[in-house]
């Protein structure tokens, strides 16, 4: 017993224990549900059989059903538009803001801090906020667009099938931009100032310095920000729930929302799980890219 305690204290025993703890945590709370989710996607699960651990096998029927569903095409297109659009805009805006605040004018840190306020708000609150902003008759967005002469009559953002997806997209961009900005700002601040000075003496103008110093030095950060942004956007649920509920007529339904609808509205857990499995595959691919990009060495 004493030997065990001693090895706990100063041997590899303690390290091993920490590793085992972490691994078992991951296994129980992340690994098992993940595996169970995959298992369910090959089974027929309804409200009545939900309570039991194992269910009748469905083979690949759930998968076939999903791909043959007439909603599938819309959902796929929506998901792609929503994810790519959100990530691209969040990243661009976040980078622009990070560069802007990197100029270190008076109050830069302060104002940058304020941006984080938006990010710490719960998604549902942000959703409600944008409901007001986007509302057709008294929304601020319409008011501004009208004032600028860009629209003649109010746009009913949320109830128009043409714009419903974009109303959530706009809210999501607003929601995710501060996060992008902060990570990119950290990346920017890690580039030594003397590199820019050396480049300037070598004859590089501002654009060339950005292109040949900033961007390549930021590779790892950019990879991380885009990967995390993609994953967070694929997880975005609250905004859909608060703003459009996937409607009207499914026009703003994305994969994650559809999965929830199938599982908890139609109580077809098998098909709900199929979408989760497909999304896990996408996230895995993105994560791989992320891991590879963090390996990119830019340290001296």
């Amino acid at each position: 017993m004493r030997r065990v305690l001693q090895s706990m204290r100063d041997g590899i025993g303690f390290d091993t224990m920490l590793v085992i703890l972490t691994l078992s945590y991951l296994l129980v709370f992340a690994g098992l549900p993940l595996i169970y989710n995959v298992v369910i996607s090959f089974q027929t699960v309804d409200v009545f059989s939900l309570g039991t651990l194992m269910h009748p096998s469905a083979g690949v029927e759930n998968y076939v059903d999903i791909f043959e569903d007439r909603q599938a095409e819309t959902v796929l297109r929506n998901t792609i538009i929503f994810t790519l659009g959100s990530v691209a805009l969040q990243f661009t805006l976040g980078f622009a803001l990070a560069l802007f605040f990197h100029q270190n004018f008076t109050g830069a840190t302060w104002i940058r801090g304020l941006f984080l306020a938006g990010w710490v708000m719960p998604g549902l609150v942000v959703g409600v906020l944008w409901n007001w902003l986007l509302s057709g008759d008294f929304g601020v967005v319409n008011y501004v667009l009208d004032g600028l002469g860009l629209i003649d009559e109010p746009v009913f953002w949320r109830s128009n099938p043409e714009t419903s997806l974009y109303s959530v997209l706009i809210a999501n961009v607003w929601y995710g931009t501060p996060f992008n900005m902060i990570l990119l700002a950290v990346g920017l601040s890690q580039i030594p100032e003397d590199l820019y000075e050396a480049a300037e003496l070598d004859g590089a103008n501002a654009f060339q310095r950005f292109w040949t110093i900033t961007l390549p030095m930021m590779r790892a950060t950019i990879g991380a920000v885009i990967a995390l942004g993609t994953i967070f956007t694929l997880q975005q649920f609250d905004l859909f729930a608060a703003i459009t509920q996937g409607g009207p007529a499914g026009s703003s339904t994305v994969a994650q929302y559809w999965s929830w609808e199938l599982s908890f509205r139609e109580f077809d857990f098998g098909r709900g799980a199929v979408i989760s499995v497909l999304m896990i595959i996408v996230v895995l691919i993105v994560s791989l890219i992320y891991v590879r990009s963090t390996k990119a060495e830019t340290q001296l």
Partner: protein
Amino acid sequence: MTKQIELIGIQKHYGGFHALKDIDLTIPQGQFVALVGPSGCGKSTLLRSIAGLERITSGEMRIAGVDVRDLPPRKRDLAMVFQSYALYPHMSVRDNLTYALRLKGVSKAERAKAADKVAGIIGLENLLDRKPRELSGGQRQRVAMGRAIIREPKAFLFDEPLSNLDAALRVRMRKEVRGLHERIGATSVYVTHDQIEAMTMADHVVVLQAGRIEQQGPPMELYDKPANRFVAGFIGSPAMNFVDGVVGEDGRSVTLSMPGTPVVRVATQTAPGRAVTVGLRPEHLIVGPPDADGAIQARIGAVEPTGSTTYLFTEGAPELLITTEGTARHRAGDAIGLTIAPQRVHLFDPQRGSALAP
């Protein structure tokens, strides 16, 4: 000779802090100038002002005859070697060397040729494909040098480029940098806090203190005729001994305020009875027998042999440092007599510190 860099009445303020005070400096084409001074005296600030990385508050600045006050660094056509080297970590050595050429739109083939040539000069032929992190400190230093010389700029600016190297390599690089300068014949401004580096490398040494030029001139002129007590103490190693004294009746000798009130003869004619600060270089004091005529009587307090030179410290206040060639025959406690040639005695005004002209 044409004036390559011309600074007239340069002032630089950082907010309320006056960093450069009235700097006048003219550097002819092809000259190697060292800016030397203690830490925080404004050497880097002056160099960076020339480079355009800092904006001067007022004054005139011309490079190759062109007023550059409002030119950004990239239009001044100067090359700088940073103390940190500032190599681009994401580029290979070859790309680091040719970065400036790439910006100028030089073709890839020509860039490769230029890189090979420069690599030959600085001895980096085998390292062209490495990244900076795969190089030793000395090799990085060479890349930084190579990056500067590949461009044939109007002038080279060095900010303590050797201070991160070990002592032996520093001595070797000193010669190499100077050799490169001679080979290329370009104008160089070299910042260092090491006066030996300044003395051995430069044609012209500028001593700065607290943002002001204390004295400038050829190295030996600064050594032989320091304009003031600061320069006298800063140039020369080990530093000059300073002793208070009073000029004698004849105006050609000084009574030192130290035990025994010794009298030394001086070459400078000054007002009798005047208080002065006497400067005696350690290498100019000659150790003799204690009873020698007109010698400063002293007793050795400590002996520090270094092999080639031996440092002797006298007992009592003020302590005098003497350097002697070779290994010493002296021991602590020995009584000695010190003599010095009259023309080697420096006199300074005790208040203002300025040298009293010989």
